[in-house]
């Protein structure tokens, strides 16, 4: 009964085994974080093996949980090691520093993300903005970003309740949810970009 | 805490509790409603009773620094 699913499962768990074994012997805190990221890949592979539309709907939350916790932990790491104060000047690659190419790439990503909309769109457009903010070493205040993300979260939850309790308005709910989640993901992602430009 | 408030707390917990017992025996309210009233009321009643009955009032302090 060695179907495709079982073979895939065996391979995915073999990966998990190797990665966890590496984690057992690792003593360095940052290496541990990198290895935990590696382990996540194996989990995503197990989810992908379901092979239905459901599996995609499960991968998206799985991915988001991973990246969110990664960001929080990396920040805790910097604070606990006292590296928070260290100055890092943008991204030290000549090409994207202050060149129009950055803006073009960022714009392309953002526009593509907005066309995609929804979840994936948020990630892609967010990536574009990260790119832009990174090269421009943005250090504005977060309040606007946080407010926008809070509003979009509320929008999305409202849309969810419309779906559940007034299904005849599904069209409205769909648009609200898609836009809400797009905004939400973009604003959160752009925080990453903003963190880059923290030399001030 | 003033004794007056403690008495009020005690009665406030005891009256609904007694009411719930009666109503449950008459079969007006179901068992779970009675249980909920009792679970919420019994601790309040005990504390109210204790505070009202004999507990003396005192000024707030940091007791473990007294020695």
């Amino acid at each position, binding site marked *: 009964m060695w179907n495709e699913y079982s073979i895939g*499962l065996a391979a995915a768990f073999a990966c998990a085994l190797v990665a966890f074994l590496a984690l057992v012997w690792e003593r360095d805190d940052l290496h541990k974080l990198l290895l935990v990221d590696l*382990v996540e890949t194996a989990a995503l592979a197990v989810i992908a093996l*379901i092979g239905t539309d*459901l*599996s995609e709907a*499960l991968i998206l939350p799985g991915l988001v949980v991973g990246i969110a916790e990664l960001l*929080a*932990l990396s920040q805790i790491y910097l604070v606990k090691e006292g590296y928070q104060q260290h100055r890092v000047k943008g991204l030290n690659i000549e090409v994207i520093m202050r060149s129009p190419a950055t803006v073009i790439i960022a714009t392309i990503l953002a526009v593509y993300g907005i066309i995609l909309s929804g979840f994936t769109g948020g990630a892609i457009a967010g990536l574009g903005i990260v790119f832009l903010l990174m090269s421009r070493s943005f250090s504005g205040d977060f309040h606007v970003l946080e407010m926008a993300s809070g509003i979009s979260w509320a929008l999305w939850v409202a849309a969810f309740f419309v779906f559940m309790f007034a299904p005849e308005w599904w069209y409205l709910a769909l648009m609200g949810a898609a836009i809400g989640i797009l905004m939400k993901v973009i604003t959160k992602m752009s925080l990453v970009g903003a963190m880059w430009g923290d030399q001030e | 805490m003033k004794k007056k408030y403690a008495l009020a707390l005690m009665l406030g917990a005891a009256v609904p509790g007694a009411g719930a017992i009666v109503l449950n025996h008459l079969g007006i309210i179901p068992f779970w409603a009675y249980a909920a009233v009792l679970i919420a009321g019994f601790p309040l009643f005990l504390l109210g009773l204790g505070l009202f009955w004999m507990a003396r009032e005192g000024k707030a302090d940091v007791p*473990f*620094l007294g020695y």
Partner: protein
Amino acid sequence: MNEIGGAPLFFLEFGDIVIYFTPFTLTLFLLALVFSVFVLVSRPERQIDIAFGGDAYYAKEISLSELRFRRFMSIACGLACMGAMVTGDVFDFTLFVSLVGICNVGIVAAVRSRHVQNAAYQYGLVALAGTVPMFAAAAMVAATTGTLSMLELAKGTATVPVAARALLVLGVMGEGMAPFYAAKAEMFRAPGAPYVIMCSLSSLLIFLRVAEVILLI
């Protein structure tokens, strides 16, 4: 075995994810609610440290911004617990549990003590690693039985593999970490009683719930 936590009292349907209350989950839900209310209304205590070798003592104060942030995290943690207690879907449960994990990290991450932050980081790594067996377990349940709903699985028409159950328990252990007690205890040395209690409450609650889940499915 439908009578694990008592017969369901009522259902709340959100599409495929059905929230249901049994006497067991209702008890846990109410406790999470009660402690969330405590977090909301109580001010943190001022922890007293005694300097040994003299009569000197000093109280640790918590700054207002730290207080606000930790209160927010504790309430989020309380909400996550409530969700994890009553949800009737395996994957939704794992998501709520990971939310509990990240909230727990957040509650103590704001503390300035280096020692506590170290413990929080180690705990955070375990919490992140714990999501791996949990998601894998949920995915295996979906693939081998074709459903994620606990109510469907409780009917016993499809058997959940033992491996998936074991992985689920292991993942929740990572998030709640009862036997790996060390980091959690170190986190507890942080001041701010109402908030750190939420860490402990949440891990106990998700443990109780996962025990019910693996007996149920």
